[in-house]
């Protein structure tokens, strides 16, 4: 649910003023907008306290936010932040994001930097009772805390590996398939060093026994090793392309452009929905773990909506959100509350499906997992190497 901001938008309006203002705008807006039904629904949802949630579309549940609002007493206004961490951080640091939004949701790793710059403020875990139910290994994800304070809450976690066509390749269980010369021009990787460098490092570490300690945080020499490997393969024409974004990823697999590529699991679900034979590999080298976390923006503190924000995040961990996200996209909120909710509302969500998803993800994380990190120590070096890869 997105809010139509008129000419006089100011994030410092209190909820009361916002409600009245919206009713006023609604009357005038009905004349402007194509259909007045959209206005009616927006105005109605203003009865709960609102909070502005600026997050990747991964965390969006669309129409179901209304149901979420009724259940939790907090109505989030979801705005898509584009999923590219670069512009998101830029907008937080130099732009207007803190004036507009209360809660952010994006890939983990940048919390340290945002905290140091004072752009995000710590969560008060006493106000988030549902945090107890979060699985321990999710609580232990490295970058959630900084200086002993909890800066981000793990909201969605998953472990990535390879999407492949079993009808073309049989069973795939190693990242070697991506670098297999027999598949020249028929594989792809994501156009993001965040993921692709880790996958390559994992492969080199586990299957070629190269001296790499932490694939998510490569040292200068390790990085050189990994990137030279990638550059060599790119020059050999190994990659059909580097993909960028959901629709591109699905299209590559669906249109036979590639037979295997590293990528996100929901692409497999989507592919199957479209009638394709696709599988997600369980590679011997392990998975890349990632989390989309919610952070509390400083602007929320300035505007005094932190309590509402805490209520919101508590709601995210409450079970309904997890069930909906799991059903819509196959993504998991790391808490047992999902299963509890499904068992209590079997007409809305099938408990065994919710349970299966939880077990599936837990099983992945029980094995070898290396964590994604948007801010490795040498992150600027990563970019430099990626430029070299581009120009190779």
């Amino acid at each position: 649910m997105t809010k139509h901001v008129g000419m006089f938008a100011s994030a410092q309006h209190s909820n009361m003023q916002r409600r009245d203002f919206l009713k006023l705008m609604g009357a005038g807006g009905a004349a402007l907008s194509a259909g007045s039904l959209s206005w009616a629904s927006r105005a109605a949802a203003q009865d709960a306290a609102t909070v502005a949630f600026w997050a990747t579309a991964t965390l969006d549940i669309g129409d179901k936010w209304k149901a979420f609002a009724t259940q939790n007493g907090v109505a989030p206004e979801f705005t898509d932040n584009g999923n590219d961490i670069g512009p998101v951080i830029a907008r937080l640091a130099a732009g207007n994001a803190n004036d507009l939004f209360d809660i952010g949701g994006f890939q983990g790793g940048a919390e340290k930097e945002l905290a140091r710059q004072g752009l995000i403020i710590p969560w008060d875990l006493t106000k988030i009772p549902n945090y107890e139910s979060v699985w321990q290994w999710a609580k232990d994800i490295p970058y959630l805390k900084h200086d002993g304070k909890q800066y981000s809450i793990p909201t969605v976690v998953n472990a990535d590996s390879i999407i492949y066509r079993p009808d073309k390749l049989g069973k795939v269980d190693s990242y070697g398939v991506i670098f297999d010369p027999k598949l020249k021009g028929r594989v792809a990787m994501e156009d993001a060093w965040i993921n692709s460098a880790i996958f390559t490092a994992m492969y080199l570490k586990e299957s070629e026994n190269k001296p790499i300690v932490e694939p998510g945080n490569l040292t200068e020499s390790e990085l050189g090793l990994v990137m030279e490997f990638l550059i060599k393969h790119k020059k050999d024409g190994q990659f059909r392309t580097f993909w960028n974004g959901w629709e591109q990823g699905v299209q590559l697999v669906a249109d036979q452009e590639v037979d295997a590529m590293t990528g996100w699991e929901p692409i497999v679900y989507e592919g199957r929905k479209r009638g394709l034979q696709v599988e997600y590999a369980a590679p011997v080298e392990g998975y890349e773990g990632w989390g989309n976390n919610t952070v509390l923006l400083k602007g929320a503190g300035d505007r005094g909506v932190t309590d509402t924000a805490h209520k919101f995040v508590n709601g995210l961990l409450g079970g309904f959100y997890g069930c909906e996200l799991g059903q819509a996209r196959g993504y998991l909120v790391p808490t047992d509350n999902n299963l509890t909710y499904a068992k209590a509302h079997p007409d809305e969500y099938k408990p065994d499906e919710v349970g299966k998803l939880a077990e599936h993800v837990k099983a992945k994380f029980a094995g070898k997992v290396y964590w994604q990190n948007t801010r490795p120590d040498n992150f600027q070096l990563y970019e430099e190497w990626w430029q070299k890869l581009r120009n190779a």
Partner: protein
Amino acid sequence: MSRARLPISSMLMAPPLLAILAFGLLPLIVVVVWSFWSWDPVTYWIKPDLSLAGYAGILEAGRWTVIVSTLIKAFGTALLCLLIAYPTSYAIHFLAGRRLNVILLALITIPFFTSYLIRSFSWRLVLGRAGIINDWLQAVGITDAPVDWLLFSNFAVVVGLVASYLPFAIFPLLLSMRRVDPTYLAAAQDLGAGFWKGLTTILLPLTKSGIFAGFLFVFVMVVGSSTEVQMLGGAGASIVSVMINDVMRVANYPMAFAISTIVLAVIFGLVLIGNRIFGLASLFEDQSP
């Protein structure tokens, strides 16, 4: 009379000048100044320590090659668009009857209304291994396996760029052709000039402003583009906007600003050179006898 002119031109200039200064120049100054600041590893933002590190970085990792290749792409696309747009504009203005003229004009405007993003994406579907063109090529028997280089290659990028920005070249050309009195061309023909001679000696000079505008529009759009290259270019293909994004992703704002400053300086330099050679002001001059 001439004394009355001065206040009028100042009054006229004021609103656009204000807008340009506030929304255009001010941010530019900020960008240029910040490009000389350093990245602060403590705050992950920038601090006012003057340094040329941002600019030095452009010489590494082949970044300057991206700037050069972007300019070449822009130049080539603009030229190609002009080559297609000129005959098209001629046909629309001189050959088409009144009705067809209007229809064609309408046809050219319409695709503008759809998003670049989705248009570029659909070229993947058309040019891909399972796309229409490959299907047709195999059906007709020209090839027996899908042609790989149709997509994820420079060919695809050029096709995508031309498809996106051709109307930008057609519009100004059409506008400039309107001011050409067809009697000039007819007179030239009566005096014995063939079609091509008439074209080069009369039409081309009279439509100079349209040619300049068309070229400039396409050039500028390509330099600022990113979707076509990202969607159609292949493994890691790059262009200036993508590179700036990459650099910003790692909080290296001084370098991002340095790259922009350089790009701006280069393009502006080219425009100034063009002005020296062609004399921009004369392009829009009143050309009445």
